[in-house]
């Protein structure tokens, strides 16, 4: 079976390729050139020439063809510009969701069609189970076995037709097992460290990135919940709900960002208890196996590192409302609310 494998140059996708190769699949490797990193910090996921070289080397050593496809224009349009808009609009974007949904998977499906590949594989930590529903098979997206690495959160937007063709060879593995498999299979970059930051902001300085990209700088007031000015800030895009560091409010009780108000470029702070909230709304919903009609019980995650919380989900016209059983801390507009039923990803949307 001809399988298209997305290689980032990192260890996960390399091991995924090696496992598929071992299973006897006929692989075609592709690496997306998404971004040109600026300055000294050129080592970052997907963005550095070194990563493309690593991907090329993996394909070469495993013995399958590999192509670098330029998707810089799509990445800027569908990921980076919305990312900048989101920060300047006072929200905290989830670019990996946008990238998987609008760039990577979308392009992989198109390439698979054009390359004559039946299946598409990536090194994501997530699982797919296929069940027979009447005459056709239906693919369901499940969390990865490794709870610490599980990347299903980023994949809720993958359309059902793509899910049916996707393979996640690492879904049953832990990160340690992946590295061990990498060593066993002689994957050239098995020891390469994981990337920690966003691939297009490898130094982690999001504030600086927003200012460079949009050629702006910003100042504004930090207020308390009563509206009194308690400090000053250098750009609302430097703050996210729940953040404590970088406020420079002097001593006193710990204060956290509660809200970012783009209209007057202010940041509202308060104590930890004020971060709790029992409900949220999500927009631009995507459902893995069809939109639900009725409210239902589910587990919802409101950020990548959030343990699923019991909730009731109320479908709306283009989104959904979530009522949590227990109030949740720092529900942040711009992040994805991803709805699970046990292991299974039901769908998700962007928190309004």
């Amino acid at each position, binding site marked *: 079976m001809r399988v298209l494998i997305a290689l980032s140059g990192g260890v996960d996708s390399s091991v995924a390729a090696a496992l598929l190769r071992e299973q006897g699949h006929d692989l075609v490797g592709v690496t997306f*050139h998404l971004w040109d990193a600026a300055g000294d910090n050129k080592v970052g996921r997907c963005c550095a020439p070194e990563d493309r070289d690593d991907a090329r080397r993996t394909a070469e050593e495993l013995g399958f*063809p590999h*192509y670098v*496809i*330029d998707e810089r224009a799509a990445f800027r349009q569908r990921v980076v510009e919305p990312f900048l808009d989101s920060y300047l609009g006072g929200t905290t974007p989830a670019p990996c969701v946008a990238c998987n949904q609008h760039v990577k998977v979308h392009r992989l499906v198109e*390439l698979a*069609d*054009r*390359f*004559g590949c039946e299946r598409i594989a990536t090194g994501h930590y997530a699982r797919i189970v296929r069940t027979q529903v009447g005459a056709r098979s239906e693919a369901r997206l499940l969390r990865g076995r490794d709870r610490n690495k599980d990347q299903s959160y980023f994949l809720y937007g993958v359309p059902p037709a793509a899910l049916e063709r996707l393979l996640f060879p690492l879904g049953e593995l832990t990160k340690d097992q992946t590295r061990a498999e990498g060593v066993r299979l002689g994957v050239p970059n098995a020891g390469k460290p994981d990337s920690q930051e966003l691939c297009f902001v490898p130094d982690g300085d999001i504030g600086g990135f927003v200012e460079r990209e949009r050629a702006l700088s910003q100042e504004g007031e930090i207020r308390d919940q009563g509206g009194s000015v308690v400090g000053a800030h250098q750009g609302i895009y430097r703050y996210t709900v729940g953040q404590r560091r970088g406020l420079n409010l002097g001593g006193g009780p710990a204060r956290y960002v509660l809200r970012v108000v783009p209209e007057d470029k202010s940041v509202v702070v308060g104590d930890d208890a004020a971060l709790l909230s029992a409900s949220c709304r999500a927009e631009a919903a995507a459902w893995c196996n069809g939109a639900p009609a009725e409210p239902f019980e589910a587990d919802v995650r409101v950020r990548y590192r959030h343990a699923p919380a019991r909730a009731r989900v109320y479908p709306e016209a283009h989104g959904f409302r979530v009522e949590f059983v227990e109030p949740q801390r720092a529900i942040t507009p711009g992040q994805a609310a991803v709805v699970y039923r046990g292991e299974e990803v039901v769908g998700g949307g962007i928190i309004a």
Partner: protein
Amino acid sequence: MIYLDHHAATPLSAPVRAAIEQAHALAWANPSSAHAAGRAARALLERVRRQLAELVEVQAADLVFTAGGTEACNLAVLGLGAEVGPGAHVISSPLEHPAILEAVQAIGRRGARVELLAVEAAHGQPTPAALAAALRDDTALVALQWVNHETGAIAPVEEYARLCHARGVPLVIDGCQVLGKVPCNLSALSELGVRAIALASTKLGGPAGVGALWLARGQALTALTYGGAQERGRRAGTPDAAAIAGFGAALAAVESRLLSQPRLAQLRDQLEQLCGACGASVNAPAEGARVATVSNVSVPGWRGEILVAALDLEGLCVSAGAACSSGLGAPSPVLRALYASEPWRAESALRLSLGPETQATEVEQACAILQRVLGRAP
């Protein structure tokens, strides 16, 4: 595997491989050395130099070996244009290979005013009228190609030469795609006042890494490399005698390459017919001449780089534009210039280039692959 990318690099024939191997065994020494081993290498070098001189009808002493066509182009532009300073006027064309264009732009960064001639799809190369209109009293250098690497369009170089000569402006020509495709007599161009012509081995059956620059007798040249008096002080560095031996063996087959052109033109037309039937448009000059070895087509609904990969997976080796820019995914600057109002042509371009080794059965198979792959577009 079917190889239709002869404008990027040509396969090495058995005689070429044998010549390289023999040189590795017998002429490995430094050709500048005074001893017997050095003399053997030197003799090989000079034999190939005379062979090339005879083939293109120039003096051997006026040929400089370089490490490839790019270096020959760079040496022509930067070696002749070393004194071209701020304010001077330099003419080139947007259809040039980056080896010329980027060298010209380097002169531009020193303050020269670089003018790129207007081009039209119908002619495929700048017209003599466009060059005549651009030439000025203070034009310090003109750098233009002979055969386009992507479309195969042949430029009216004799007319360029007459125009430049009449204004006393030095003309350098990128002839890297010429040998074996177009009969060429450099002495005729020399008589018309051309100052330098760049040639490449890897486009005519020889190995990569060797080329030559012909210089008009007495032409001053500033070397680009420092470190030795090789090539009469025009190109420092020990020449690669084995690559030059391969170049020589390839030169011996230039006549037969030329004889294969009518057959290749038929195969090219066959490819173009098939591509046309699949909805592609041929990017060829309607009113200009072109070589027989290349077919440049644009396929709506495809991006060139993706089509190249899809065809590669089926065993067909082609390219989306100049091989040097492939892999970057940038749409062909040549087609962008020729078809400024139809950007899709550059984005979806495919270059299929043939050589004397290309068999009719291979072209048939290539057509079948093209048909199958193009049919996958949504």
